[in-house]
């Protein structure tokens, strides 16, 4: 293109832009009219949501899905989450957010503020489970073409879990448009599950082929249903060749799922074992070093859990909301100190006078445990206390094959290993650890060497109690925080320590994980209650054969 005169160029530019402007303004003027038509239908469907019967509400939701207008998304989400209200004065439908005593209203279609109201002027529009399932499917359809990949990912899951007649076509067009690989793979799987029912056997074969590589138990049962017989005796899957392929796919998935089942039992066993280990490790220290049967050990765990509750309340009041989730980290040293302090008090005040008299120690510590329980009951009340799970600890991690582990338990396993490693390092490398080991092996000789055994005893008891307190922090996340928390763990702690060998850290570790894994492998077979009984019987029989436990500590022989 040749360079024309500057003046000509600018005149052409002006003409071009003015024509563009006229066209655009024409379009702009026509849009409102078009939009107004849609507006009227949309508003009618939205106000239908405020119906009395669930049947009418269902029809309104389906109508909103058919219109395909993205402005319905806000209203549907609000209805599903219980934020959609009807204003009694003009029967209009609004989204209401609570702000103190009043509600701030917004128009669901436009998002514009619609004023304020009190709870008296509003009536909540209730959804039931069936309606929420339907809304999820409709929202999925509306969001399939969203530009946000996160929204698209969620939309694909929603459509696959609640498909309707038109879902197959929708998924196919979404797959053709899709740019991201993982979303496209999920779309292919979804299309394959829907194509299992298609009329063309070749399509069905291709679908089976595609699904055979997965390890989702839901897909396996979808395939299995193709092998069932109809009421008249014919197979649901009419083509014999496709049937053979389905059979093979099902057996392949079953093999994979069996492996996942084993993995699941192992993972649950490890997480139960880590809970047992956390509870028992403090007892291993006190029982092992001092030979003191401490029946108040469970209450140390309980005190740690209540300290976590107190720290949570302090954080709730003083800290900003974003920092609230970190109360757990602050609770760990706090719980250690609180429980250790109580440990020293018990040792100095009660156990010191009863050395060498195990039965009296047992009774005395049992009495101390009752006192501690009642003290907590009087201070905090007999009811459970709510310890909220912070956001970073909620939810679950899915490993595939229908196996998912809750995040809190993963953290507990990691936490447990860290605590055990720290304790082992402390005992091995610190001066106090050396003194502790000396007193365990031969009290008389250690005393003769100049070690103050009385002080070592007190601090050992404090250490064991402190670790129990730290265990309480972790257990507050998965268990009830009540004055009876200790009673739930005391028997298990003793079982682990006796089984693993008194005084041996390794014994406690192996014992805890061993018992946890055995318990979890038994549970699917025998049920929770019989599983516990069987584990107890196994331990009793084992102790008959090896009274000193798994890892008998040779040093105790010196004391006889």
């Amino acid at each position, binding site marked *: 293109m040749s360079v024309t005169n500057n003046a000509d160029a600018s005149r052409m530019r002006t003409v071009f832009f003015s024509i563009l402007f006229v066209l655009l303004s024409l379009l702009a003027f026509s849009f409102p009219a078009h939009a107004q038509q849609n507006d009227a239908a949309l508003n009618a469907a939205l106000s239908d949501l405020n119906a009395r019967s669930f049947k009418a509400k269902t029809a309104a939701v389906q109508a909103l899905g058919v219109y395909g207008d993205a402005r319905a998304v806000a209203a549907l989400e609000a209805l599903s989450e219980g934020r959609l209200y009807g204003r009694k004065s003009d029967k209009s439908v609004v989204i209401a957010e609570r702000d103190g005593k009043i509600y701030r209203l917004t128009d669901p279609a436009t998002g514009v503020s619609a004023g304020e109201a009190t709870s008296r002027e509003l009536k909540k529009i209730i959804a039931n*489970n069936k309606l929420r399932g339907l809304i999820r499917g409709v929202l999925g359809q509306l969001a399939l073409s969203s530009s946000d990949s996160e929204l698209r990912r969620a939309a694909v899951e929603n459509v696959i879990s609640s498909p309707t007649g038109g879902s197959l076509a929708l998924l196919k067009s979404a797959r053709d448009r899709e740019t991201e690989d993982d979303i496209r793979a999920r779309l292919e799987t979804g299309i394959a599950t829907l194509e299992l029912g298609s009329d063309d056997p070749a399509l069905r074969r291709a679908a089976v082929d595609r699904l055979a590589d997965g390890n989702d138990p839901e897909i396996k049962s979808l395939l299995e249903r193709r092998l069932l017989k109809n009421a008249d005796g014919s197979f649901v899957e009419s083509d014999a060749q496709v049937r053979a392929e389905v059979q093979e796919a099902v057996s392949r998935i079953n093999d994979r799922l069996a492996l996942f089942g084993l993995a699941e039992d192992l993972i649950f066993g490890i997480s139960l074992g880590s809970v047992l280990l956390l509870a028992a490790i403090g007892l291993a220290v006190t029982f092992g070093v001092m030979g003191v049967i401490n029946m108040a050990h469970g209450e140390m765990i309980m005190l740690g859990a209540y300290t976590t509750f107190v720290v949570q309340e302090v954080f709730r009041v003083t800290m900003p909301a974003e920092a609230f989730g970190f109360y757990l980290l602050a609770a760990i040293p706090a719980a250690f100190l609180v429980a250790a302090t109580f440990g020293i008090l018990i040792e100095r005040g009660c156990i010191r006078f009863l050395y060498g008299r195990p039965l009296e120690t047992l009774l005395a510590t049992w009495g101390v445990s009752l006192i501690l329980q009642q003290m907590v009951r009087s201070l905090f009340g007999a009811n459970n206390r709510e310890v909220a799970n912070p956001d970073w600890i909620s939810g679950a991690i899915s490993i595939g094959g229908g196996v998912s582990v809750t995040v809190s338990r993963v953290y507990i396993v990691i936490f447990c290993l860290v605590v055990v490693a720290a304790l082992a390092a402390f005992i091995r490398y610190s001066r106090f650890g050396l003194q502790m080991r000396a007193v365990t092996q031969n009290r008389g000789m250690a005393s003769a060497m100049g070690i103050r055994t009385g002080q070592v005893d007190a601090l050992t008891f404090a250490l064991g109690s402190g670790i129990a307190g730290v265990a309480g922090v972790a257990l507050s996340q998965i268990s009830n925080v009540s004055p*009876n928390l200790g009673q739930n763990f005391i028997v298990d702690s003793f079982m682990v320590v006796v089984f693993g060998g008194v005084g041996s850290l390794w014994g406690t570790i192996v014992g805890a994980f061993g018992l946890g894994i055995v318990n979890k492998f038994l549970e699917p077979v025998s049920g929770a209650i019989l599983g516990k009984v069987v584990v107890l019987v196994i331990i009793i029989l084992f102790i008959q054969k090896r009274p000193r436990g798994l890892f008998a500590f040779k040093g105790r022989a010196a004391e006889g």
Partner: protein
Amino acid sequence: MKSAIKTVAAVGALAGSLAFSGMAHAADTIKVGVLHSLSGTMAISETALKDVMLFLIDEQNKKGGLLGKKIEPVVVDPASDWPLFAEKARELIEKEKVDVVFGNWTSVSRKSVLPVFEELNGMLFYPVQYEGEESSRNIFYTGAAPNQQAIPAVEYLMSEEGGSVERWVLAGTDYVYPRTTNKILESFLKAKGVPAEDIMINYTPFGHSDWQTIVSDIKSFASAGKKTAVVSTVNGDANVPFYKELGNQGIKAEDIPVVAFSVGEEELAGIDTGPLVGHLGAWNYFMSVDSPENEAMIKKWHAFIGDDKRVFNDPMEAHYIGFTMWAQAVEQAGTTNIDAVRQAMYGQTAPNLTGGIAEMNTNHHLSKPVLIGEIQDDGQFATVWETDGVVVGDAWSDFLPESAKLTADWTYPWVCGNCEKPKHLTN
């Protein structure tokens, strides 16, 4: 000698004054026993019932007491220990000489005190939903029998509005109530044509906190392509980790709804109900029901307890109905004598807080409405279905062949809690 006489005289005077004060005390007040666990695994549910009894007695005393005397509550703590329930019941009747006892929650505690009440001819008002299969002369059951809670809840889930559920997980705590209720429900489901492989039954101990395996089993049971629901008879604070695990593993109420029979507003007050929205409860009363009687009662309750956040639930309403009926029966009989009051109880009516009238039948059970509600994120229930009128409580389930033949009726000519024929036949 002189000192000995002095000692004897002192002891005699002391004993005499004690006896005298005891007698005077007994003449002045009517004693009502409150037998609820204030500690242990059931404290989460039962402490509120002790509080509501104190509230109801206070309200009655404000109206002038009963038969011109003040009512005195006698509160004991059986600490979720079932044998201790029996000991405490004996203490209330023999030592404290109460005229009536309001108490118990778990069926095992009720079975534990039953022989004590029958031996000493006491009267117990039992406010909690239970498994039926019992009708004692000495107990008035103001809670729901299975045909007033369990069966309607399962029928709702089977219906189209409830989700057309076809596969069932019956999960309960291991004691008599869940075991018997599940027996009845299994028989009911099979009678409705549900095949045995579509029913999974599972029991856990009290206070069970490791729900990973069971929730995982529920998920895989539900992945067979048929709509699955969980019917939960889990009792006490084991519910807290159960619901937490459900929430953590992402089980949404739209996919696998859980209907619980022992989880009410009080139990939900201690849980983060965000992930529980949509799960169900079946009761005869919800605090969220919009009625003038309910509003008035909740206002008075909050004024008494001094805390706006305290909730009101079905067993508390049952105690209100039972206490109202008992007070009316005492006034009618003109005495607190147990046999006279028992006769006056039959046919007693009291207004339900949800509207309508509750009536005490001769089988010692009430006629009550049934409400099914979904948990909201503020810990309240929103009613999604209710019966049109009231359902008469049936002590002996029609779905168990041995029980269907039995009738409970303590008036002439039956005078029996579990007979096939009346004891006094008129020829």
